[in-house]
């Protein structure tokens, strides 16, 4: 046992001495490796954090939303429909939601105007999302002037700002009272944007949804589960945003590994031949290279992961901001739910460490099984 440990330590000594030999080359390789892991881990951490955050925030969203469809398009829902839905068994409550978009030419942003279920502002007053308030430089007491559907300016007094810790769901929100909303958009009293349902038994949400569809075929029913899955899909690391970044990264990784796997330099082959001639077993040569690959990749992985953590949770993931932002003017400031999952770390490690180590071992194995004489003669 002691001999085994001493031998492995000796092999590790030689590995480190070997890595020190070509400092610039190995350092470059290491940095590239760290960068790859950093980007990969950033994508995964960001995606996971985002999914978790969305899931936790939308846990309290309406259980079902019913939209009216006219010729395949979302249309305003008459109040009578709400009553028909309310009459279904299993429906605890129905509320007509009022929300709509307004393009604010002053800042070039789309605003979401919405009437809250409860605690609506008084007439002529609004509550503003913190991102919007920051962009327009508005504080409570200031006036937000918007042109209504008829081109008439409406001046709303900013009553309060929504808590800035809720920016992820409220960046562009303008909350106002029902009367103001209807007047602003010119929507008659009997119409709603859509309907939000609460069900008696959450386990029967699907049954209720089917009943709604049966009674009102010209509708689309969206469950809370679907809302959650929408964001799961966007931030799932196997699709959507992360996949785009990921595919590029994996391609880069494949290149790195391919470069390694495609063969050893004549110098490296000669050195393996020398070692074998000096009494190194093929297994010793492989063990040394295994140490080399493991050391490089484990260090690079841990360093890259830590940097990714700092990037996503302390720097606010600046690398992804442009992608998420797209053309939108309003971009919320938000913090993510920390999502550190050991199994995720392990799968990330397997994704990066294993192929690299395997790629380094294959050509070495080929050279290490040759006669030392043959290798040295080349």
């Amino acid at each position, binding site marked *: 046992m002691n001999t085994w440990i001493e031998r492995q*330590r000796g092999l*590790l000594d030689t*590995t*480190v001495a070997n890595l020190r030999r070509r400092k610039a080359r190995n350092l470059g390789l290491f940095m590239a490796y760290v960068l790859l892991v950093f980007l990969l881990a950033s994508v995964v951490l960001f995606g996971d954090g985002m999914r978790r*955050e*969305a899931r936790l*925030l*939308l*846990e*309290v*969203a*309406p259980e079902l*939303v019913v*939209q009216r469809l006219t010729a*395949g*398009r*979302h249309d305003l829902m008459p109040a009578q429909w709400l009553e028909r839905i309310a009459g279904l068994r299993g429906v605890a409550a129905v*509320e007509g939601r009022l929300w709509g978009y307004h393009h604010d030419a002053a800042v070039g942003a*789309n605003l*979401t105007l919405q009437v809250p*279920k*409860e*605690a609506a502002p008084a007439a002529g007053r609004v509550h503003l*999302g913190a991102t919007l308030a920051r962009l327009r430089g508005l504080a409570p007491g200031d006036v937000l002037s918007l042109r209504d559907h008829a081109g008439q300016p409406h001046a709303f007094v900013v009553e309060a700002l*929504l808590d800035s*810790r*809720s920016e992820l*769901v*409220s*960046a*562009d*929100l303008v909350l106002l009272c029902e009367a103001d909303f209807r007047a602003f958009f010119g929507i008659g009293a009997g119409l709603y944007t*859509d309907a*939000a349902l609460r069900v008696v038994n959450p386990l029967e949400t699907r049954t209720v949804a089917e009943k709604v569809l049966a009674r009102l075929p010209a509708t689309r029913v*969206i469950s809370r*589960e*679907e*809302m959650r899955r*929408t*964001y799961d899909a966007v931030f799932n690391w196997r699709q*959507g945003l992360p996949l*785009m970044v990921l595919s590029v990264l994996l391609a880069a990784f494949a290149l790195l590994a391919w470069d390694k796997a495609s063969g050893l330099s004549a110098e490296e082959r000669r050195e393996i031949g020398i070692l074998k001639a000096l009494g190194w077993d093929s297994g010793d040569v492989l063990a040394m290279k295994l140490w080399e690959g493991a050391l490089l990749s*484990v*260090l690079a992985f*841990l*360093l890259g*992961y*830590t940097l990714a*953590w700092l990037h996503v*949770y302390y720097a606010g993931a600046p690398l992804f901001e442009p992608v*998420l932002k*797209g*053309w*939108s003017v*309003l971009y*919320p400031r938000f*913090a*993510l739910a*920390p999502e*550190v999952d050991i199994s995720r770390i392990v799968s990330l490690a397997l994704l990066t460490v294993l192929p690299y180590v395997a790629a380094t071992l294959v050509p070495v194995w080929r050279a290490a099984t040759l006669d030392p004489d043959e290798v040295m003669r080349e």
Partner: protein
Amino acid sequence: MALFSARRGSGLAAWLLAGSLACLLLVLVDASRMAEERTRERAHGRALVARVGLTDLALFNEARYTRHLSQADRHAAFQDHPGALEHFPAGSLAGPARPSP
């Protein structure tokens, strides 16, 4: 000789590994600390979601079908023009809400 003298290559390697494992440990500790803080902060967002009846994140507000991804028409992206496959960057990231399986 000390067990992990950095003068031997293996000692140096052990120190480096220990250091980077410590980094990972710090990340894990930091994550659990941050989780509590985030739960407190998130209460504000959740309160707003419940109060207003919100259904979506205000993350992509460049187009109406990206602002409320879960509420968007399935064919919203084609509405403006039959040939307009995609117009806004966020639209290429997000698919439409999928029906329950």
